[in-house]
């Protein structure tokens, strides 16, 4: 069984990214995962680490407008990208995005752990399809697992933002 080992001094690499509209230039190790860079280097702890192996969708962020899993993305692989996290949805005056408001209005939050991922998927769907059906909402969020709120209110919240 392989173990973590220090084979030699691995060179740190430059990472230039725009996160929530703000440019960052970081020096990171090649094995740094995107979610850890967001949470630990940039203190954006809204994105949650759930299962770590791509099953729960809790770490979903938008990279160049497309939702990806932060826990299975090497940070070096998104060099030059434009990243949007849950923190980037609220406006500069701290007011919430309509999807976030809808989650509050429909009590689509219980423990809140899946919420950032769910909201990002809801936002992504509404960006591409302003009037999704319930089926389309369930289809789009099928990779995001919630264990306490229940999916009904989450789907209802996203549906309420439909034009």
């Amino acid at each position, binding site marked *: 069984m392989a173990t973590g080992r220090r*084979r030699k001094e691995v060179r740190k690499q430059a990472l230039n990214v725009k996160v929530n509209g703000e440019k960052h230039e970081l020096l990171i190790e090649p094995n740094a995962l995107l979610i850890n860079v967001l949470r630990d280097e940039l203190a954006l702890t809204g994105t949650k680490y759930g299962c770590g192996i791509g099953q729960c969708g809790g770490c979903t962020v938008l990279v160049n407008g497309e939702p990806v899993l932060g826990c299975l993305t090497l940070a070096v692989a998104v060099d030059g990208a434009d990243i949007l996290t849950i923190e980037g949805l609220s406006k500069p005056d701290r007011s919430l995005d309509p999807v976030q408001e809808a989650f509050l209005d429909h009590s689509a939050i219980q423990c809140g752990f899946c919420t950032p991922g769910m909201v990002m998927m809801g936002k992504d769907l509404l960006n591409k399809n302003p009037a999704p059906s319930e089926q389309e909402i369930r289809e789009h969020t099928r990779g995001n697992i919630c264990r306490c709120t229940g999916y009904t209110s989450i789907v209802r919240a996203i549906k309420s933002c439909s034009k």
Partner: protein
Amino acid sequence: MVNTRILTQEFDYFVPETIRETLELLRQYGSEAKILAGGTDLITQLKQEKISPDYLINIMKIPELNHIEETGGLRIGSATKLCDIKEYCAKDRKYTALYEALCSLGKIQVLNMGTIGGNICNGSPAADTAPPLLAFNGRVKLLSERGERVLDLTDFFKGVNNTAMAPDEMMIEIHLDPAPDDTGSAFTKIARVGADISKITCAGVVERHGDICASCRISLGAVAPVPMRGKETEKILQGNRIDTFLVEKAGKKVAEEINPIDDIRSTAEYRRNIAATLFKDVFWKAWQRAGGEKR
């Protein structure tokens, strides 16, 4: 099973911009290197310490590996994202089986990250794109500094997580047969929940002349060490007039022909029983589509 918040393993990372550069790196580092083509599977394996490469070569920035074109069949670059293939196949639904496989594969996020080459180069018997690619008579173009070779997908899969690809080789392209109007195809998958790994998958391509099945290719996933063609089943159907009796008989052959195991997702017995049913569903769907019915 190890699963840590960080990647404990250390490696050097390369982002070549050309195929030539990649081949040079593969010649130099070969068996100590892994190709990163999306990472949904590779990073999971790294996290679980199933693999420990000293070098990662990210091929996602090579434009020549990212294309979908129809010239004498369908040609898909190995680093083409699954979401782009799905979108392409949605247009005219000629490659329906591939489209249906992509619709059922994992979650939206995984389709945005994963590539077709990544899905099959890991050699997983449960890779969802493998059965439709097999059913469309897929061939893969492999390249190394030693030269180019084209392999039938049936010869490409060698065993669980094992393919015919040499350490200094990379996959360039996947080439599928044309899908003319008198053919139809379908894919079905059984999984616990929508975004889960398959218990069993089945795909079929049927060429129909009236009531006669002129030719067909049936393939199955997660029922043997490799994604496989049901060649004995195909023999029963090919060149014959299709009726429920014959399809029933073919279904029995499917259950015989596969070689499933008991694992975390299902028992072998269940897989044998369900394989016959799954095959029949797939066959009739493909058959109706070959007859011009609505897709």
